[in-house]
């Protein structure tokens, strides 16, 4: 009984922080997923770490993006009209 590995305790925190992306990507097998989740339930540090990764991803999603200049866009639309005349 006492020799049974405790779920969540066969994986260490050093391993959790490196497997977190695979976990979030759904790229871990069922056994590893269960082990990660058991560990997260036991370990506040890793649980915070995962939350913070999710938060980071969300925040990165709000970084403003650059667009093509209006002049370049106008040129492209003109080129499109030249090459692809709509069928009438």
């Amino acid at each position, binding site marked *: 009984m006492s020799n049974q590995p405790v779920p969540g305790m066969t994986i260490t925190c050093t391993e959790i922080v490196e497997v*977190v992306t695979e976990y979030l990507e759904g790229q871990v097998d069922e056994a590893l997923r269960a082990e990660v989740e058991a560990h997260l339930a036991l370990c506040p540090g890793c649980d915070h770490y995962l939350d913070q990764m999710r938060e*980071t991803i969300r925040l990165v999603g709000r970084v403003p*993006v650059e667009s093509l200049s209006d002049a370049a866009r106008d040129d492209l639309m003109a080129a*499109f009209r030249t090459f*692809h005349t709509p069928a009438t």
Partner: protein
Amino acid sequence: MSPTGSRGGLSLGSFASPDGGGPSVAPETPVPDETTTEPGGDAPAAVPMPRPWSDPSDDAAAERDAQLLRRLRAGEEAAFAQIVDDWSPMLLRTARTFVSTDASAQEIVQETWLAVVKGLDRFEGRSTLRTWVFRILMNLGRSRGVREARSVPLSSFGPDDNGPTVDPSRFRGADDRHAHNWTPAGAPQPWEPSPEDALLAGEIRGEVGRALETLPARQRLVVSLRDVHGLSSDEVCSALDISAVNQRVLLHRGRAHLRKVLEDYYRGREVTA
């Protein structure tokens, strides 16, 4: 398999080499064959290549792509305007990897779209339209990077792709009863107030934006395409011609660094509070 093991000899794939076999396409006619991006770089034609960018199970997406192509070929200006507006930001981000100024990146993206306009009728639909556009951009970017004699930064990444993403001193040593678990001081603490808090939101946005710019170029590109522009992992792999493992490692390291920057920001607040 140990999740931390065996990443040492990571193959950087063709993305890491400026241009393996010379420019595959002349700058004037930058429309690559859809199935190859490097001359001689792919398997012989007789070997069926997996095509991760066209998931055959996703019929709806394939149908949307086919419909978009029909509208473009019919000369529907609104369809072209829409892809130019939707895709240019991620193309600019990618182009910026090859050149040192925003202006040059704008030129590469503009050249890419011109090549798309001219090559639309030759596109055979063996990849998604967006992947094809990306490949044109990658070819133009590579030759532009070579022409500007800018050492293409994509090859200078090895050291950034190895080693732990969290400072090992935050974990207990091997002789500890709880070896390799967080030390009390090393364990992550909740971020409070939340990054959503109105007082912090602006500052945090700035931190994240600046931190993204300081990532090594390949990490920055993969994190941007995935998390800013919302591409799938499959699409990033085919757009940049990198392996799934390579993509995931770059994403992992980039995200881990950004998390660390935010953590440092919160720790700095505690100190000054």
